[in-house]
């Protein structure tokens, strides 16, 4: 005995009721539950759909789907970090590394020409941060719009459009720069600041432009069903 389309829809609803927000996971769990229910019906055809569903759901343990959702989040965040790192490494290969080094040199020259290095540095830092958080807001809006359009939420899309865990790390450079006033007076200090600034700009560029631009490609590779929708 096979499940009807209405029963499949009920399974999707069931996963949503059990806090599975994302369509990719809903689909996988729905198919799993459906297979389980059909197998139970083969053994005992008198079992009702809801009874069979409860039996199958119990197999996921007392936390239900929670563990599956959490672990999926961890796995996809790891995948995203891998993507960021891959793009980051690109800037340190030939010929891009020439551009990276030139950028460091240009910022170093600008900083050494100016009297108040720390002030200029703080302004540049503020501009980078404005782009970082401004971009985050714009991408969140885009993500919500895409969700509304399709009526479905995709976990990897959400990770891409919210920088994964990177948004939470932004306090680190802030902490670092509070203590930078002293070192901005030495030559090595200015080199260090130039390197940090360029690395931040690169990270901004990767998180804000490069990865979102290729998001469709990454999402299709992660979810073959993404294009079917």
């Amino acid at each position, binding site marked *: 005995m*096979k499940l009807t389309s209405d029963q499949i829809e009920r399974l999707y609803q069931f996963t949503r009721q059990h806090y599975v927000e994302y369509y990719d996971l809903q*689909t*996988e769990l729905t*198919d799993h539950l459906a297979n389980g229910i059909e197998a139970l019906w083969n053994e005992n055809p008198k079992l009702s759909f809801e009874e069979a569903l409860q039996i199958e759901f119990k197999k*996921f343990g007392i936390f239900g789907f929670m563990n599956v959702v959490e672990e999926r989040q961890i796995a996809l965040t790891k995948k995203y970090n891998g993507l960021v790192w891959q793009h980051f490494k690109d800037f340190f290969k030939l010929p891009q590394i020439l551009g990276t080094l030139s950028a460091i040199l240009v910022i170093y020259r600008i900083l050494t020409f100016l009297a108040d290095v720390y002030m200029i540095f703080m302004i540049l830092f503020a501009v980078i941060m404005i782009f970082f958080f401004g971009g985050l807001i714009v991408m969140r809006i885009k993500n919500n719009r895409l969700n509304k359009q399709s009526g479905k939420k995709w976990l990897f899309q959400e990770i891409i459009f919210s920088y994964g865990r990177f948004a939470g790390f932004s306090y680190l450079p802030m902490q670092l720069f509070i203590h930078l006033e002293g070192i901005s007076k030495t030559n090595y200090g200015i080199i260090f600041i130039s390197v940090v600034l360029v690395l931040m700009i690169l990270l901004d560029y990767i998180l804000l432009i490069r990865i979102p631009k290729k998001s469709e490609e990454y999402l299709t590779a*992660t979810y*073959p069903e993404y294009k079917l929708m």
Partner: protein
Amino acid sequence: MYICEKDFMKSSQLYKGSLNTIIMKLLEENGRMYGYEITKKVKEITKGELKITEGALYPALHKLEAEGFLEVEVEKVDNRLRKYYKLTESGTTETVNRLSELEEFIRNMQTLVNPKLSY
């Protein structure tokens, strides 16, 4: 007694570290599989002695996928979508490595637990 033994095997820590290798070995043999099929197959092969719980299977599959060892295909089967997993090129190489590691582990354990077998 038998039930106790079975329950022990199901929850045994010894199996936890081997879950990924079991999944990869099955995919190597069967080409591509979906989640439910994997749990069924393990139960079938081990005659019900070893059961992969649903709560452990999907996290393991998703982790292997994120690490680039598995890739996915989605197909409409009956009136629903089904997600199939298969080994990538690096996944195939990794399976060979993990299996030889596991075999070596089993050999060492046999020697330790039952020294007579080493003769």
